[in-house]
């Protein structure tokens, strides 16, 4: 079966979800990846949104937001931000969070805040390009046991140093995260349109773990702004099965991921 790079990325992200996980998804692609997993291999995973809408399955298409009518029509509980992002995420109870990124560095630090003409300038003036800021991403990155970063693999996005750390990954690597006593464990994977990166267990530098059947190590390296290392156990990500694609497309009713 034919599939797009976006579909491959969504399925590879969804595979990170284990049956029984308590998960938090944002809007857009991460929600599709999450609901794919629930529809296919993780029927006992529990999904929530940061708005505290629990027990819901979207109706009528991809929700416009984490709070809209498409996600609220069949919810079993309407709660609030402190409940979802606080009691369930920053407490350390949430197993897995999926976040997007405009920019990421080799230690999995994520920028979704903006780009500056000179990001090294200590003076923090207006950005050249303002982005969305954290939303719940910083809270998810600090609190979830496992975090998956899902993003397009492009040179401008994979930077040696991000302009702004919106969501902490492993900061400067090694055990620096421990200094802050974050309840969560940090990013376990960067799933991209070309492959999957995972952190070295000691240095926490992200390396190529697998690449997709249609991509290559060279293509991943060429689209990364640092000297991207390759795991000694590097392999090829299994391509989506017919069952996986069918489940994903049943969730992606608006065809968001079918765009080439």
């Amino acid at each position: 079966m034919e599939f797009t790079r976006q579909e491959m990325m969504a399925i590879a992200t969804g595979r990170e979800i284990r049956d029984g996980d308590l998960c938090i998804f944002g809007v857009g692609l991460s929600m599709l990846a999450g609901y794919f997993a629930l529809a296919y291999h993780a029927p006992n995973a529990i999904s929530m949104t940061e708005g505290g809408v629990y027990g819901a399955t979207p109706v009528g298409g991809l929700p416009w937001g984490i709070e809209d009518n498409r996600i609220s029509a069949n919810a079993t509980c309407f709660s609030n931000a402190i409940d979802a992002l606080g009691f369930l995420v920053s407490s350390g109870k949430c197993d897995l969070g999926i976040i997007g990124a405009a920019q990421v560095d080799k230690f999995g630090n994520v920028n979704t805040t903006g780009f500056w003409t000179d990001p090294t300038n200590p003076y923090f003036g207006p950005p050249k390009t303002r982005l969305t800021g954290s939303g719940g991403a910083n809270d998810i990155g600090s609190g979830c046991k496992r975090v998956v970063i899902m993003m397009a693999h492009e040179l401008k996005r994979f930077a040696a140093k991000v302009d702004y750390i919106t969501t902490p990954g492993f900061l400067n690597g090694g055990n620096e995260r421990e200094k802050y006593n974050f309840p969560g464990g940090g990013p376990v994977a960067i799933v991209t349109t070309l492959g999957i990166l995972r952190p070295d267990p000691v240095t926490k530098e992200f390396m190529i773990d697998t690449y997709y059947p249609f991509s290559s190590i060279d293509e991943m390296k060429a689209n990364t702004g640092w000297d991207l290392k390759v795991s000694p156990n590097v392999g090829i990500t299994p391509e989506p099965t017919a069952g996986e694609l069918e489940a994903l497309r049943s969730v992606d009713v608006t065809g968001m991921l079918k765009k080439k």
Partner: protein
Amino acid sequence: MPNKLISLKEAVSGFTYDSMVYASGAALPVGSDSLVFGREIVRQGRKNIHYLAHCCCQQVNLFAALGVCDKIEGGFSGLEVYGFPSGLRRAVEAGTVVWEDYSNLSMPLRFLGAALGWPFVPTTVNIGSDIQWRSAFKPDEYSCKSKIPEVKDPFTGKICGALPVAKPELAAIHVTMADIEGNAILLGTEWSRYELARAADKVILQADFIVDTACMRQYPNLVRIPDLLVEAVVPWQLGAWPQCSVGIYDSDEEHMYMMNKMLGSADGAAEYKAKYVDGWNTQEEFLAMIGKEKIEKITTNPTTHLMDPYRKWIKTDDEIQTLMQESRFAAPTQAKQS
């Protein structure tokens, strides 16, 4: 408790002023927000507002595009699937509005801290990131030590952060339904409206429906904003439009995109203001501006069953007009609500 119904115009003229510290609720990008209250703030020409916004929403986008606010503290500066807020983006990139970043958890924690009278709120989020180290309000201070100072847990010696509390002088909060005394039920996520209503010095409700107090007596557990917190209640149908109000109306896809596009330029923003802020005076004119066909479309949505338990208590337009005359805010010769 007294009857606290008030007209939109009087609520804004009586409770808002230039340079105030203001918050809207729920300040959701697509869902609940007191947007019609914000339109009236724009119309009455308020300036230099310091906006505490849990998230960006079209009210933030409108204020930023038209120069109504110059400082914003918020957790999210997008409009979710509707994209980047072009009015806000234009103002922040030009430096006419300064946006101080927090996150979607730290903003309600800051409201909670203010509500409890705490000096600060200990936090395990936002620390170790540029949200802690960079301050748009103090651009010279890097690494910033005064935005979210690092503190030691006095019991364990471990490091955490100290969030400043967020205390608005006024919170204008959109609710699904309220009675005339200010008891409110919120359908959909309440987001941070529970904490915000307790953090603010004063609270004004903007309610899609006015219901009889018997409704609150039937479902007292669901009243998350009680009358004792509320100064006044503005009855206004479709008040969050073009955003959605769970149980009543969907977001207006066409207008959400159009509004965002228009706010992206100074000329477009002025045109938007002329037509959609200054171009109506009464509730009837506001509904006519949206249009019957559009109202039919957005009120046909998958959540309308959520309103079923409450319908028998909803006050009619005529009943509301009569109640307005009996309100504590009614002038002896009060004109028809506008």
